[in-house]
């Protein structure tokens, strides 16, 4: 697409536009910038998504991406406690919502600010992109903070079961370990290793900046140019992840037994990469199975009092993922009974497919979800963040069109293709009676 006159801004190449969102690249260092002006409220969201997540880790430093994310708040050249400009203080004192999250494929830092303070958010993110302190004296106390975050996760039977299902389904690929990492890696990873991680991945050419909300596009782009163009591109190419998961050659099962009150069943099947065309049919399938009271599993399991809730884990990732149906059992209900119902329903779809009405209902539900993902600057930035993570931000803007193309035939085809017993990993959380 040729740049139009209104897309010409000093220092940038215009790349493309989709659904009102414009993509630019900062010529100086290949920083990708997504911009959407929206003057509905006096608010702007600024987000930096780094293309690094727990998939870029290996044995010995699992959880490093997340621990590094914590250390990124400990101070940088211009924003630190010594200068009385600590990041949290600078931003929370103006009423900003500020945080960061880490997941399999990405790490994102964001600020939702009163629009007159957008420049402050830009300055902070630019500064810590290449000038974060990452001191060992900061890692020590932050390690115990993160370890407590890990411990809190371990308190939850669901979190423990989910970790075990992924670890069983993925043996070679780094999706094997959860983003929080293994406890011993959190405790022992060195500051040097974290710095090395930062110096490998935290570069403008490995990041996408998103700015949404109440601002003047020209001024916002000028501000991003002003603060980020001091950084060069990475001197070395960003190392790719080349580990493929070997083919699974049979069903896998795991059990987690702990003191608890109620059981959980989780049934996982391997799914394709997020950008694969089959993703859209799987998203529609997820709605047909468990979204709303008319969904199949709701009628078969919840309405019969066999489980208190059902949760579908169907997030698209950069690499292959998992489609997991979780059922939180009613006290006294046998895991086997619920597992059988879920598998039977998959088999029913393999044999008989889904109805046109079911597909249309699911598409309507997704249409509304997509519309609400435009409700607020943070909502847009957050949805874009996940699309950026899987490799193409237009996944977000084209999502509804692609969902509209998911037919009954396509859904039957993907269930037949992916929901095979040999590709399954089934996990049970067994609640043990407390010791007297």
């Amino acid at each position, binding site marked *: 697409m040729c740049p139009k006159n209104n897309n010409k801004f000093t220092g940038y190449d215009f790349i493309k536009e989709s659904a009102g969102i414009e993509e630019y690249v900062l010529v100086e260092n290949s920083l990708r910038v997504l911009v959407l002006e929206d003057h509905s409220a006096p608010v702007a969201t600024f987000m930096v998504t780094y293309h690094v997540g727990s998939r870029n880790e290996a044995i010995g430093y699992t959880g490093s991406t997340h621990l590094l994310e914590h250390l990124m708040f400990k101070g940088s050249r211009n924003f630190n406690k010594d200068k009385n400009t600590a990041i*949290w203080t600078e931003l929370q*004192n103006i009423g900003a919502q500020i945080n960061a999250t880490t997941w399999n494929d990405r790490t994102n830092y964001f600020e939702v600010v*009163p629009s007159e303070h957008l420049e402050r958010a830009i300055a902070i993110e630019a500064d810590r992109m290449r000038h974060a302190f990452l001191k060992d004296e900061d890692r020590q106390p932050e390690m115990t903070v993160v370890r407590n975050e890990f411990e809190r996760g371990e*308190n939850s*039977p669901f979190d423990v079961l989910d970790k075990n299902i992924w670890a069983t389904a993925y043996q070679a690929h780094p999706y094997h370990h959860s983003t929080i990492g293994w406890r011993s890696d959190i405790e022992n990873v060195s500051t040097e290793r974290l710095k090395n991680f930062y110096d490998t991945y935290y570069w403008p050419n490995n990041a996408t900046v998103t700015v949404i909300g109440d601002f003047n596009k020209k001024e916002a782009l000028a501000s991003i140019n002003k603060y980020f163009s001091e950084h060069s591109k990475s001197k070395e190419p960003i190392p790719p992840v080349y580990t493929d998961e070997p083919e699974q050659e049979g069903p896998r099962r795991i059990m987690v037994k702990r003191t608890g009150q109620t059981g959980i069943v989780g049934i996982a099947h391997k799914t394709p990469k997020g950008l694969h065309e089959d993703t859209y049919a799987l998203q529609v399938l997820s709605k047909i199975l468990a979204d709303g009271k008319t969904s199949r599993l709701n009628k078969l399991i919840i309405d019969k009092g066999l489980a*208190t809730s059902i949760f579908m884990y169907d997030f698209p990732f950069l690499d292959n993922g998992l489609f997991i149906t979780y059922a939180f*059992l*009613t006290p006294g209900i046998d895991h086997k009974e619920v597992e059988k119902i879920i598998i039977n329903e998959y088999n029913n779809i393999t044999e008989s497919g889904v109805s046109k009405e079911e597909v249309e209902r699911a598409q*309507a539900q997704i249409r509304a979800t997509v519309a609400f993902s*435009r409700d607020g600057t943070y909502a847009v930035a957050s949805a874009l963040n996940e699309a950026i993570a899987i490799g193409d931000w237009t996944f977000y803007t084209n999502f509804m069109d692609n969902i509209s193309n998911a037919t009954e035939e396509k859904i039957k085809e993907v269930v037949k293709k992916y929901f095979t017993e040999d590709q399954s990993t089934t996990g049970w959380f067994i609640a043990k009676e407390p010791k007297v």
Partner: protein
Amino acid sequence: MGTFSDQVIINEEIKGVKTYVMPTGVKDVVTISGSMLGGSIHCAGKNSKVSSLVASMLDKGTEKKNKYEISDMLESVGAELNFSSTRYHTHFTGFCLKNNLETVVSLLAEQLTTPRFSTEELSTLQGRISGNLIRDKENTKKLAMIQFLRTLFPRNHPNYQATIDESVESVKKASVKDLFAFHKEHYGLGSIKIAAAGDVKAEALNGLLLEAMKDWKNKKTNIPKITEKAIKPKKGSQTIKVQDKTSADLYIGQSIGINREHKDYYPLMLGVYILGGNFSARLMQTVRDKQGLTYGIGSSISGVSFGADGYWSTWGTFSPDILKKGVGATKDQINLWFDKGVTEEELSAKKTTINGSYKVSMDSTSGLTSKILSNAEQGRDLLYLDEYPKIIDAISLSEVNTAIKNHVDPEKLYMVSAGTL
């Protein structure tokens, strides 16, 4: 920036229903949040779970439609209607595309006015709610919080909490007859407040509501005068043992003897915010950021609405083997805060935070409707939302430090911890 009073259209055409509509720039979507009086406080002397069961049964069928017909109407257009009940209110929220507003409003009215309350559906719901409650026995935070409030307040106080087992028993005991009786007594015109925001026109929404609710009868539900007071603060501690938990939860605090209308409320709220209201507050900056003892710690004032005297609590999560150290570090900060007070610089920063947060909260339609409805439920004029930043700005340092001295006593803190301890 426009003010709320400039942008929100208020209507009281239907007696007993007050609507607040705020059209925004967002395309296609509409969020509706509403409430009416009818919460667990209105079950006083009876089964306290009836109000929440009534709310949860509203989507299980009406006189004319079964639950699948209702769900089908909503799900086929991607809309949602949710009902819940709190201490004082029954709440409803709706999310839909603008073209489906009529469907959602007519269903909302039908579900509120003519619920079916079938025995079979109630029985399934009771099993599901009981299962969720029993699962809470694994939740160390919830266990600590329940015990903390049971110690601070007497049984008939709005802030008192039933044990999980008591709640399960109440849920199981409720009958369809109880539900119909509660519905008949409290569901009706009178106290309904509805806030809507997004791609919505006030005339259109009000017209739909007028049509849908015109035949509904008036009910005289009021918030009963709260006569019970908190138990006098006393020093003490309790430990709840839960097996196989890698993290423990802690509550420390006390009752404060004042409600939201007291002159010290805002100064005290600001003081507590400086202690533990956000990440840049003292507790997170010291116990987490400097000492690395916790993933999360915070402090707040709660339970002060509708005339109830509330409480101040500090919550934190700790590894069981450093809980003692964490308690010590938390108490050090509380003592320092009490002894030396807060500084002018801290107060000024928090005032800016609150003013900025006010703008940021306008980022989404659900943020807007929640703010407008909550203000209306408190019986406040819409203008109050515009004046709130000025009220906060006018609070002086001495007012904050005096309020801390008046309502906090570090010698009489109560502490509950739960975990594998």
